[in-house]
């Protein structure tokens, strides 16, 4: 199957019935991916990272994506985050088809609709925590005064009100990740993407981070999509997707899953 072939109606139908959002839930779909293919070409070598992945994410949902390395997880993540366009298929972020956007419009979308949390925090080291949180607001065109007020209140929300003027290098890993979470929330995004947010943290700090995300999700009704293998994080999810070989192979609720089974150890 080559990526450029349009999906036939039967395939499309199969995926849509398999991986659509829980039925009976009429919340709006924040993310919708339909039969997404992505092919990388290096020289004459073609790599199929995604071979027809489809998913739907509801507003306010806490979704976890699992998959071994090379499964296409990162690529799917990049699509949902408007970082890459699919080779074929559709990706809608808040009903906007990202394939139709030029790079400036993609920047606009990333700025306002998506918040990123990185595994290694990715704070700008030369800026204070406050400036780091204000940066996406500046990109969104917010004036410095209201931006500062808003950044201060978000930093207080994540429990860092007392260290706002420190540089990231002066903070612990957990504190840096809190700043990163505050930054992800800066422009009140529709969806927060978290790429292994607890991987670089010790267990206790990781636990705190999971609770913080869960708490923020409850309070701000923000949609969270995370790539993770952290059991505690998976258990907090509303839904877990497995991706393998470029396709989504399983979609389950934590209550239906035996976390004691071998695949989690």
């Amino acid at each position, binding site marked *: 199957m080559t990526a450029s072939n349009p999906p036939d109606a039967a395939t499309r139908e199969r995926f849509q019935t398999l991986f659509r959002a829980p039925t009976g839930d009429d919340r709006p779909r924040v993310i919708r991916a339909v039969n997404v293919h992505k092919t990388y070409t290096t020289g004459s070598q073609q790599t199929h990272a995604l071979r027809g992945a489809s998913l739907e994410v509801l507003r306010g949902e806490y979704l976890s994506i699992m998959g071994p390395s090379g499964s296409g997880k990162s690529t799917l993540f990049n699509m949902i985050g408007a*970082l890459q366009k699919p080779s074929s298929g559709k990706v809608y972020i808040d009903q*906007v088809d990202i394939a139709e956007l030029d790079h400036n419009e993609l*920047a*606009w979308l990333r700025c306002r609709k998506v918040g990123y949390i*990185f*595994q290694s925090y990715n704070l700008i080291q*030369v800026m204070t925590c406050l400036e780091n949180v204000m940066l996406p607001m500046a*990109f969104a065109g917010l004036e410095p005064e209201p931006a500062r007020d808003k950044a201060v209140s978000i930093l207080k929300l994540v429990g860092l009100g007392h260290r706002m003027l420190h540089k990231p290098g002066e903070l612990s890993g957990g504190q840096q990740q809190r700043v990163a979470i505050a930054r992800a929330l800066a422009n009140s995004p529709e969806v927060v993407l978290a*790429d292994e947010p607890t991987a670089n943290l010790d267990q206790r700090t990781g636990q705190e981070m999971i609770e913080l995300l869960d708490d923020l999700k409850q309070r701000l009704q923000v949609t969270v999509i995370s790539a993770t293998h952290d059991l505690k994080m998976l258990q907090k999810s509303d839904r877990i997707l497995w991706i393998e070989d470029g396709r989504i192979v399983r979609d389950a609720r934590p209550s239906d899953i035996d976390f004691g089974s071998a695949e989690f150890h």
Partner: protein
Amino acid sequence: MLSTIPNQVRLPLRVAVGVVAQGIRIRLGRSLVTVTGVVLGVAFLTSILTTQTLHRSVNTEDRLREQASRAFGFLTAETGPVFGKNLGVVLAAPLSPMEERLLARLERDGAAELRVYAPSGALPKSLTNNGRARRVRSERELGQDAVAILLMGRGVVPALDWSLATQGTRQRLVALGSERAMPALPSQVEGVALARPLPPDEQRRLLEAARRDRFRAIWIIGISLLVTIIGITNSMLMSVTERFRDIGTMKCLGAESGFIRRIFLIEASVMGLVGGVFGVLVGNLFALTLTLVTYGPTLLGQALVAELSALGLGGAVSLAVGALLSVLASLYPAEFAARMLPAAALRSNV
């Protein structure tokens, strides 16, 4: 739906400048390397420009002295050494610059007395300064015990009896200081022109040498500026690579490519200007020291006064070239950064 997505808000310049200022401050070491590249390039350019400007002024003096020296040679070829001898001078003011140097040369070589015949007006300073000039009123006095009579100046030749004037001289010789027509002389009086143009092949040789020098200067300046550009580009590429993750992160947070590009171009122009200022200072210092050592303080002082505006212009040009070079050299690295895929920031442990 698409129509509701406006272009990303143009980020205030202030934010970009802030990011740049922090970047330069934090990565001071690398910034200094880049700035040093600009300083060296601009210093080289400035030193060449300044040296050329100063030499132009000094060269004029040099050429005049050389002409005076040649004229002196023609004179002494006729009269023999002038040491302790008297000379009659018929003054048709004003003197040419070469003639002033010729008078100075006569003085230095120990001419005893210059008997100046000038019908009216004050004697020029260059004559009275040396204290060996004496004004005479008659043709007889003018030529008495003189080795020759010099007709100097480009003005109106005073009416005088050349035969009477040269009666007392040893050789009945009238030497012409300026390039002008010889006045009508009696047959027994010999006339000799001291200011002679260079022979054509000599002139051609000089022109050829000047052209070669100019070509060599342009070539050296061009190569050095190219080296500077490559140095800055290399250093800026390093800077981009160093900040790969920051760039990717900013792009994930919604920075447009234009913003990233602008950050690097602003950084380049700031470093170019700073480097340019120091380069102009260093280059001028070098050129002035060199000129001072070669020509001494007097000539340097004269040249400085004469060429002040030209030197200022040279400095301004060098400064502009520095900033321009820096921006030019950063175009590729800035574009490289701007085109970076934001997904690169998501790769952990970059």
